[in-house]
């Protein structure tokens, strides 16, 4: 009988990524509904000492495969290790981050196990009657949501979009079991040779982690148009993001684009400046806690989505708003 919910850890250069904890949090909810346990699978080199942290976030067990061939991510050793674990421990559900690693290894594993895999999920739930995992995901650039099930094959597997599930709380007193697993990996499993690891020169900002996003679109008018937005974002302790037009026009770097596949943001405040709101963009930010739009066109889709839409010229409003916040903060301090 397949049981328990397995979470595959996403680590890059030995650093466990935030999506892992989000997955543990979500798995904990599902485990409660099923009366099963959360088991976390940690793969890497020299990584065992991080298992304790995973327990503090909610893992009942951590299965560790600590092997030199897992130092840098390549498909085959990771796929082989996960496949080995699935065969040996027969999980009911396996969750991966929908990252460039998760989306590479999960389909490979699904093919090897012969089971279903649902990509880039934004919602997971257990059907109270059938106990099946209901996997909900956007398609058509976020225009349609589809709920998918895997009835006949096990484990049920999904990749889950980063930034969507809530972070669980860490509890240092939590206890759990750490199990070393020998998945039989050898150097021969490296069927791809890593010639060079290229770090991004620019510090890559992860807009999905920002609490406040000040986002610019066509209305900012050019690269210099983002400068007042940067000042406002700095004042709010947030980051600047952009619609597609700003990126395609070369006004701002691509890592700041909202609404690309997999780049969903849900900050506490999304301030849309001169963004009319193409559907891909809206799909990427509509779950933001509070949306303020500044736009000259009151009929555009972004103004309809916004909690507060202000019709006006962002070039006049944004600098004044930055100043008003600075003034307000100064007054609060007194």
């Amino acid at each position, binding site marked *: 009988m397949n049981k328990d919910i397995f979470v595959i850890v996403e680590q890059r250069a030995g650093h466990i990524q935030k999506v892992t904890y989000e997955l543990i949090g979500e798995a904990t909810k599902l485990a409660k509904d099923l009366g099963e346990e959360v088991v976390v699978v940690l793969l890497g080199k020299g990584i065992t000492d991080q298992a304790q942290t995973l327990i503090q976030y909610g893992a009942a067990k951590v299965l560790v495969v600590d092997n030199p061939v897992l130092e840098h*991510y390549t*498909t*085959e050793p990771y796929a082989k290790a996960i496949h080995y674990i699935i065969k040996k421990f027969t999980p009911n559900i396996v969750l991966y981050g929908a*990252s*460039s690693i998760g*989306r*590479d*290894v*999960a*389909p*490979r594993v*699904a*093919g090897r196990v*012969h*089971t*279903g*895999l*649902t*990509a*880039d999920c934004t919602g997971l739930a257990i059907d109270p009657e059938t106990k099946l995992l209901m996997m909900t995901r956007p*398609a*058509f*650039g976020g*225009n*349609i*949501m589809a*709920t*998918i*099930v*895997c009835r*006949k094959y096990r484990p049920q597997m999904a990749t889950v979009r980063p930034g969507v599930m809530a972070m669980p709380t860490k509890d240092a007193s939590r206890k759990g079991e750490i199990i070393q697993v020998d998945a039989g990996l050898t150097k021969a499993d490296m*069927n*791809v*040779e*890593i*010639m060079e*690891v*290229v770090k*991004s020169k620019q510090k890559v900002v*992860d807009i999905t982690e920002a609490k*406040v996003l000040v986002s610019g679109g066509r209305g900012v008018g050019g690269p210099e148009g983002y400068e007042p937005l940067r000042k406002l974002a700095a004042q709010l302790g947030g980051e600047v993001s952009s619609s597609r037009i700003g990126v395609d026009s070369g006004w701002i770097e691509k890592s700041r684009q909202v609404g690309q596949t997999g780049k969903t943001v849900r900050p506490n405040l999304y301030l849309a400046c001169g963004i009319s709101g193409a*559907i*891909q963009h809206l799909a990427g930010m*509509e779950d933001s806690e*509070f*949306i303020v739009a*500044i736009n000259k066109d*009151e009929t555009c889709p972004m*103004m309809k989505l916004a*909690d*507060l*839409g*202000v*019709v*006006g*010229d962002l070039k006049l*409003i944004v600098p*004044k708003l930055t100043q*008003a916040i600075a003034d*307000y903060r100064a007054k609060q301090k007194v």
Partner: protein
Amino acid sequence: MKIIVCIKQVPDTAEVKLDPKTNTLIRDGVPSIINHDDKAGLETALKLRETRGGTVTVVCMGPPQADVALREALAMGADEAYLLSAREFGGSDTYATATIIATALKKIGFDLVITGRQAIDGDTAQVGPQIAEQLGIPQVSYVEEARVEGNDVIVKRQFEDSAHILKVKMPCLITALAELAQPRYMNVGKIVDAYQKEIKVIGFDDLKTSLNPDWIGINGSPTNVVKSFTKQAKVAGTLMKDLTPDQAVAAIMDKLIERHII
């Protein structure tokens, strides 16, 4: 060198609009295109052929009208085209699709397989890796640069915060990012040729000796869609107009304070 490029015909999702009254997709009149990532993969294959010689074969699974996508690929310069089309293939999920395509690729033969990273309608990024798994060959996905040296493919593989330069022996499969190459336009002479060339159709009967019918189509797919829906429209927010900039700032400040954002 024999390169196979897998392409998918997709609706141009950038052109899809929502019906404001019913909140459903308006699909009528939405043009069909070759998926962007796949087209970049095709361009790369054509460039590799220019430097290395060999042939470029395009393969597309879909309904008979997907023929148009294959003709476009031929007009860009592909040597031959296969359409995988059968009633039995309909409703396949990624696993079943990869099973069908991998079976056909074994029959056609290849040194290098290129797929797009993902299709803009489904966005799964699963079919490429699943084809590689079923073919039992190495894969590199998220490729933004590629060249061939001897029997090796050297690629730059993108991650969120870094990239790897990887060397992989053929036969192998790579999945292309749209950034990999800017697709060329169709050549006028080749457009004419493209409509004279034969598109070879591979149906269920052509593959049935090596294809388990229980593993394909809607019934053979491990996953099934049980429900699809458009997102509920949110409750309308507040719209404020005819304000001076100072009044606008005051209105925003009120909300930011009320919501404890500042």
